[in-house]
């Protein structure tokens, strides 16, 4: 794997708190990597240090093996898609896309800008101002403006959060397709675990300024290293110190035969369309959530049930 970006013990310490603390990370060329974490976990600060908007208080950032830790934003070949897109309101769509090209040696600006707009399916809107296009279109202009520069790493700061939920899923698929087509390394910052899981080749989970775990979506979801990671990526039932995902939690009115099962009582059954959430309570008052198919047996509040799981589905922490 060819390393394009490397973070070595990068920290951003303020007098009052540590925004980022000793983050080390390697990005392979062409991969889609997500930094996932709750707000205030340091993921955006990490991104801003890679972009050059902020400087680390410790550590090194290497791009293609060269130390860029203290280089100015305009001296590093990375580009950012901002959360609010930050399109220049006084320039047309095409002029926005050409802005970065014109700061570099080269020519055929207009042609290259139009190709980038074609890539994000905005051909025909090049003369509009940012105020005259929709939120989704603005987002694609921001994407084209950065992609056209062929950066070593494209940094995306929660680019989908300003879109409405229906559009978000559609744009998510487009983003992935575009990334595959251009082969540029994407570093995507988000607090949405579904986004991170569905888009990424690999992801890193951050909490309180520290990188908790790095891995493929499957690794992170199925083998979380800490309780925080387990809880942040999805629901977890904590039963006697053992964690089990709700969709791995089995529930039935009859005991499962030879397997050890715990008796429980259904508290509530919630129909969610594609599945049903059954909330039950163990004799020791511990709550358990089971995600079951609507095609299986139905449950109602007060039903006596049995709860069990496969040992392989237990989450094990170091």
């Amino acid at each position: 794997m060819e390393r394009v970006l490397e973070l070595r013990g990068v920290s951003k310490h303020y007098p009052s708190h540590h925004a980022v603390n000793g983050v080390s990370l390697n990005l392979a060329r062409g991969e889609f990597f997500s930094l996932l974490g709750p707000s205030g976990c340091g993921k955006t600060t990490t991104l801003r240090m890679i972009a050059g908007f902020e400087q680390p208080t410790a550590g090194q950032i290497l791009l293609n093996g060269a130390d860029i830790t203290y280089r100015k934003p305009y001296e590093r070949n990375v580009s950012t898609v901002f959360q609010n897109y930050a399109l220049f309101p006084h320039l047309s769509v095409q002029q926005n896309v050409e802005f970065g090209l014109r700061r570099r040696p080269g020519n055929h600006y207009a042609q290259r800008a139009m190709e980038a707009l074609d890539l994000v399916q905005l051909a025909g809107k090049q003369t509009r101002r940012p105020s005259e296009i929709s939120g989704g279109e603005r987002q694609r202009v921001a994407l084209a403006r950065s992609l056209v520069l062929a950066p070593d790493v494209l940094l995306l700061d929660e680019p989908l959060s300003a879109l409405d939920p229906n559009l978000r899923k559609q744009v998510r698929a487009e983003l992935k397709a575009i990334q595959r087509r251009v082969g540029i390394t994407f570093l995507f910052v988000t607090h949405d675990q579904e986004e991170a899981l569905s888009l990424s080749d690999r992801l890193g989970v951050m909490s309180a300024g520290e990188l908790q775990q790095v891995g493929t979506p499957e690794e992170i979801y199925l083998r979380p290293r800490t309780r925080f990671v387990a809880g942040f990526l999805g629901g977890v039932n904590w039963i006697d110190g053992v964690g089990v995902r709700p969709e791995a939690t089995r529930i039935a009115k009859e005991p499962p035969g030879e397997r050890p099962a715990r008796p429980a009582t259904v508290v509530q059954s919630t129909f969610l369309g594609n599945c049903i959430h059954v909330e039950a309570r163990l004799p020791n008052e511990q709550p358990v959530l089971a995600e079951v198919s609507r095609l299986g047996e139905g449950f109602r509040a007060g039903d006596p049930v049995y709860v069990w799981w496969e040992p392989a589905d237990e989450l094990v922490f170091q």
Partner: protein
Amino acid sequence: MNRLRAWFLAPTWTVMAALFLAPLAIILSYSFLTRGAYGGLSSPWTPDSYQRLVDPIYLGILGRSFWIAGVSTVICLLLGFPLALFISRSGARKNLYLSLVILPFWTSFLIRTYAWMFLLRDTGLVNTFLQKIGVIHSPLSLLYNDGAVILGLVYGYLPFMVLPLYATLERLDQNLLEAAADLGAKPWVALTRVILPLCEPGIRAGTILVFIPCLGAYLTPDLLGGGKSVMIGNLIQNQFTTARDWPFGSAVSLTLMAIVMLLLMSLARRDAEDLL
């Protein structure tokens, strides 16, 4: 509802009618009358006063006023922009700096102009100091010339340039500057390609707020120009006092007003075009 609105607007209308429209009407009628033998006004009605305006002497004064106001405005812009940019970037100290900008308003403009006279005259602070340290041997003539007038105007109206510029710079999305740097723009390029174009409304507002009072300035050219550097405001004052030619004074006043209004209208039309 409409009656209520009429009641609330009535005081404003009364004040405007009594203190603005009525005097304007009086000036307008004066401007078409003839100067009396001992000052004052007499018939017949005539447009003579307006015809006298095309005299090269008066056109010269008008042109000079435009020149001095223009130079003062440009200097205000050149000084005011970096200052406004600095204040908009100074975080918690913004309010302190802003209050320093408007601090001179706490003292009368007249007194501040006199203060400049004390600084600039032959036996003033500047000349005395320069002579003491031996840089010059005879006093420089710093007062009673165009330079002194421009200095006084820039000093007096700089806050009117700084405040609107600050207001637009303050609202400028910091992400846009980060985006510019991110796309490869060095600070100078970011300034000329992003900050300045986005500041245009502030630049326009500041230019209007400085240029128009400078054009009609009377006190500053009178005190710092010492009658040698006559601007249109002094011409008008002169007609109502020494020259006792009220019709001509009225005609010059109205002409100045008309010019200012035409300027404002052309700027307003550009604003409207920008919106399209």
